[in-house]
């Protein structure tokens, strides 16, 4: 029981810090001290935090490298955009909050379904092969999205493949994406999604299923010998992460008037993976901090103008070299010689 209480306290502290950060941000926004560009970054920061935490569930907690996480974000963004338009037109739901919440749920649901469909073949593979297949699926999703057309005609939704001629108003237009999205996302909702994600991921890892997931990561053969159905638990982590990414995608999609399918390229998957790795694989807090900082970093590097992506690349390489340098490692181990529980997954990781 002692351990239970400890993990509960840890979770409460996590929620507390997030709420505190939210209040600080909200206050600076209200006081008008936050710069315009940074204010515009608040929702993307929430989106990328959720993306990173959910990807960490796959990469860190279940130990499988996924290179197609942006695919689920794209499914969520498009289903969210379509769903919100449909809700307005078919049911005349005017409340933006209700529509946003329902759209995020729809985004999560459809991304979750995509996660199941993709997980069935993907999770039969292992290691690098699994990674390359997630990459392939990410690209397939993007490719298919490029060919999908949706229209709304008096509350009825029409879909077509590769054929822009549809009755009513076209809302998703193949390669140009969704063009007439109503901006619904708000910073408080983004923050609520972060809390929800933390709630799901932290509670999952501290439960029977979470332990089974981590067991399959740490030692697949021993986990099987203990009667744990490895595929089932890998699937659980994968689909949960996909659904969360879908919700983040819906939040992202409803944050501007257009959703461009090109936004969810391989690069975006990689970007989120970078957050996870820099934050420490399996370390949820690390993911949050890395996602927030690295989303803002290109803005902060604005002074370097043309050189900013170059600086970003160099920073990335140097950080990787430094964090893996044996000397710096042993030094930091000595400084923080009590290993934090969240960092313990670092060794497991997707390296197997």
């Amino acid at each position, binding site marked *: 029981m002692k351990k239970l209480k400890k993990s509960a306290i840890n979770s409460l502290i996590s929620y507390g810090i997030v709420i505190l950060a939210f209040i600080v941000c909200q206050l600076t926004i209200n006081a008008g001290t936050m710069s315009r560009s940074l204010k515009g970054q608040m929702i993307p920061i929430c989106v990328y935090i959720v993306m990173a935490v959910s990807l960490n569930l796959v*990469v860190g907690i279940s130990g499988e490298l996924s290179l197609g996480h942006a695919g689920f974000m794209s499914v969520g963004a498009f289903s969210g955009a379509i769903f919100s338009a449909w809700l307005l037109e078919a049911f005349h739901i005017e409340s933006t909050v209700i529509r946003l919440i329902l759209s995020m749920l729809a985004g999560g649901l459809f991304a979750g379904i995509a996660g199941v469909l993709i997980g069935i073949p993907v999770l039969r593979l292992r290691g*690098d092969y699994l990674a390359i*297949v997630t*990459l392939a699926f990410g690209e*397939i999703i993007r490719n298919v999205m490029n060919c999908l057309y949706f229209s709304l005609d008096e509350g009825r939704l029409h879909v077509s493949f590769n054929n822009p001629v549809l009755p009513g108003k076209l809302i998703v237009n193949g390669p140009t994406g969704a063009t007439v999205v109503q901006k619904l996302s708000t910073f408080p909702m983004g923050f609520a999604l972060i809390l929800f994600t933390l709630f799901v991921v932290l509670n999952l890892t501290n439960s029977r299923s979470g332990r089974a997931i981590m067991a399959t990561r740490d030692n697949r053969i021993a986990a099987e010998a203990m009667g744990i159905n490895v595929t089932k638990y890998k699937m659980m982590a994968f689909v949960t992460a996909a659904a969360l990414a879908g919700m983040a995608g819906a939040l992202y999609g409803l944050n501007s008037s257009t959703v461009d399918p090109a936004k969810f390229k391989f690069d975006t998957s990689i970007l989120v993976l970078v957050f996870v*790795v820099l934050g420490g694989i399996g370390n949820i807090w690390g993911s949050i901090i890395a996602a927030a900082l690295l989303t803002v970093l290109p803005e902060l590097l604005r002074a370097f103008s043309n050189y900013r992506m170059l600086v970003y690349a160099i920073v990335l390489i140097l950080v990787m070299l430094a964090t893996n340098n044996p000397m710096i490692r042993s030094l930091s181990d000595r400084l923080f010689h009590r290993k934090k529980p969240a960092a313990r997954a670092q060794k497991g990781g*997707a390296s197997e």
Partner: protein
Amino acid sequence: MVSFLRFLINGISLGSVYAIIALGYTMVYGIAKMLNFAHGDVIMVGAYIAFCAISYLSLPPLLAVLCAMAVCTALGIIIEGLAYRPLRQASKLAVLITAIGVSYLLQNSAQLIWSANPKVFPSILNFGAIKLFDGSLVITSQTIITIAANIVIMLVLTMFTGKTKMGKAMRAVSEDKGAAELMGINVNRTISVTFAIGSALAAIAGVLLCSAYPTLQPTTGSMPGIKAFTAAVFGGIGSIPGAMLGGLLLGLIEILGKAYVSTELGDAIVFAVLIVVLLFKPAGLLGKPMREKV
């Protein structure tokens, strides 16, 4: 029928380019067990160097290619030495992220040097064409050179890994790094040489690719890079004939898929076939399945 032949030849030609790129991926993976995501960008650098050598220095095409190969070889060795070698003991993911960092670095450097505006790559491989079926089937010299280059490279590489001392060292290192080191093989040097060869091949691939699709941009290498990587996995990563086979099949599937199924879904078809193959042969077409010892 003639159009099918045309697609077939185009497919083999594109597949040959993929195969040459895939060789670089597969050799590096086989020996260093890492996914070198920056490989696609080395192709781009190779193409830019060749472009500069021809357009600004007016070098003859062959010399320009050699020039590109030399620069890329050096680049490969430098990247390996500075970015990857310090991470030899690190986790696979750390190396992967570093490779992604290197990829960003190369792309953004290229953008600063050559700007993001696409350059038109000069057609240096066009010396004429063979016309068949009363001119309805045209095989350009470019196609022939691409396919020939592919065959020559494969033969040379097979001989190199099979017969030379360095090639044998490579195979030893890829089997078991530790044991190879104990047998007196200089592992670091072997890995450097592998990167050098892979990068030189990338330069050739860059020139061949840009001769066929003459728009040259800093992002030119990414998509062919990803596809060639797919090809390497497809054929069984780590296997040289596998990379060849995977590359050729991938090129064929892409061209035929675009021609007969759907232009928009060309890439999706390629990746879907990859997935199906991996489900039935989890180690790729020619890869050896690995069994974990219990």
